């Protein structure tokens, strides 16, 4: 069953028919497993990794370190939730180390991110401080590298 998810993680567009062939299980069983996984949110979403720079429409991204004060009974969860609900927040993690929350924030331009930080994030009561790192270049994302040599450049077209 794990294999079905491994395939989908790599090829979100793989059809149940294709997957059924690859894992050697009936189509109906594969469909059932996928349907169930979508229902119980094992599969959260089907996404596409796009190199927006090729379209000249690259967003601005920033990694933000946030130091926050935990709250009685709820620890960091309540403040994390307050922060990650902002649509600007793309990913959010509780991390160990010198700060507590690590966030990936996406905006149309630098101004949008800086206003998010100064107007929405920093003023929150539990937020002690923030450090914003703007992303300069994306090398690899979700296991995919952005600049790959073409396969044709590496292998001979026909070999014994």
């Amino acid at each position, binding site marked *: 069953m794990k*294999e079905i998810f491994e395939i989908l993680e790599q090829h979100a567009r793989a059809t149940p028919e294709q997957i059924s062939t*690859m894992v050697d299980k009936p189509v109906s069983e594969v469909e059932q497993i996928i349907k169930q996984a979508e229902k119980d949110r094992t599969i959260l979403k089907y996404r596409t990794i796009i190199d927006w720079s090729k379209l000249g429409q690259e967003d601005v991204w920033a990694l933000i370190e946030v130091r926050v004060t935990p709250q009685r009974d709820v620890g960091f969860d309540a403040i994390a939730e307050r922060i990650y609900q902002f649509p600007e927040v793309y990913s959010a993690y509780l991390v160990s180390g010198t700060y507590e929350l690590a966030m990936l924030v996406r905006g149309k331009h630098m101004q949008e991110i800086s206003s998010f930080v100064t107007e929405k994030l920093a003023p929150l009561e539990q937020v002690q401080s923030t450090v914003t790192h703007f992303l300069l270049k994306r090398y690899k994302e979700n296991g995919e590298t952005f600049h790959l040599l073409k396969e044709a450049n590496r*292998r001979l*077209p026909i070999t*014994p």
Partner: protein
Amino acid sequence: MLNIESTAIEARDNLISQKVATLPPSGIRKFFDLLSSMEDIISLGIGEPDFVTPWHIREAGTYSLEKGYTMYTSNSGMPELRQELTSYLELHYGISYHPEHEILVTTGSSEGLDLALRAIINPGDEVIIPDPCYVAYPADIILAGGVPILIPTNEENNFVVRATDIEARITKQTKAILVGYPANPTGAVMSKKESRAISELAKKHDLLVISDEIYARLVYGDEHICFPSLPMMRECTILISGLSKSHAMTGWRIGYVAAERRFIQALTKIHQYTMLSAPTIAQMAAIEALRNGEAEVQKMVQEYNRRRRFMVKRLNEIGLPCFEPKGAFYAFPSIKATGMSSEEFAEKLLLEEKVAVVPGTAFGACGEGFVRCCYATSLSNIEEALRRMGRFIRKNRLTT
């Protein structure tokens, strides 16, 4: 695909040895030339992994360069590598060899095969091989002064050479049986029963077995039978393998031979005068591959298996019946429904649909009526190639 004209011209050139002049060129050469001039080809004709060598292995190679490992190694290969190889064989096939006396590291398994044949063949000795088989088998036997004896195999026996067919061709000159399973070009594997029958035959007629197991790790379902691990076979088998296919390391050129001391000594004698030692950087990378590469190997095997199932199913669907290949990364469908010869089919498919496959006849006369399709390429390539092949078949199928 013997290029008769050029062979004849070469044969008249006294400066070229008769043996080489009359040796047929590899059957894929013509396609290589044709392919090089075309663009947007989807190639199912590549006999190597599409994965790049896993990064930790490449990194070990780079590191060895930085540390200055640029000299020769011992003829037999670095002691650490031989040690790793013996542990690897013990772990996977339960067969033990002495790292010092029974292992030779070669420049790819191709060198191992050439050494083994040259070390055992006296002029006129016969070596039995299956037909179809890997392109180098008959050529290497001829170059070593031997005579290749081809045993036909077919779909009915899953392209595995049968002991009874071999026995019928044994003569006083028969020296060895050369088998390579999982097989290139068919993807066939040899079952325990079939291997045992051949091992009994080898014992009965006092024959040597050269077992080319370069694809041993790429099996899907049945466990691979390592030939020398069969009863009484260790003493009369020369095992040839390498890391090219299992660890996606074709360009590194690392192979090995495992056999009893007397054989390794004989092979090493030729190796020391011809190759000296396998590339040092590659040996360092191979050590890393054997120590820490297992997870990557299994990941690649799993991925090949998915593509294999997909390709075989689609081939059957589009009307190219294909027996189930249980090893390597090749499917060997029958193209008889088109009425074309293998070569005609491959050429027409390439020109009309820009899909490259290798005609079965490149691997022996018994490959007629089949083509080799390699699934070591991305799933989307396989999908598109088979879509084009389906269109080609609909256009070219004989109406019955």
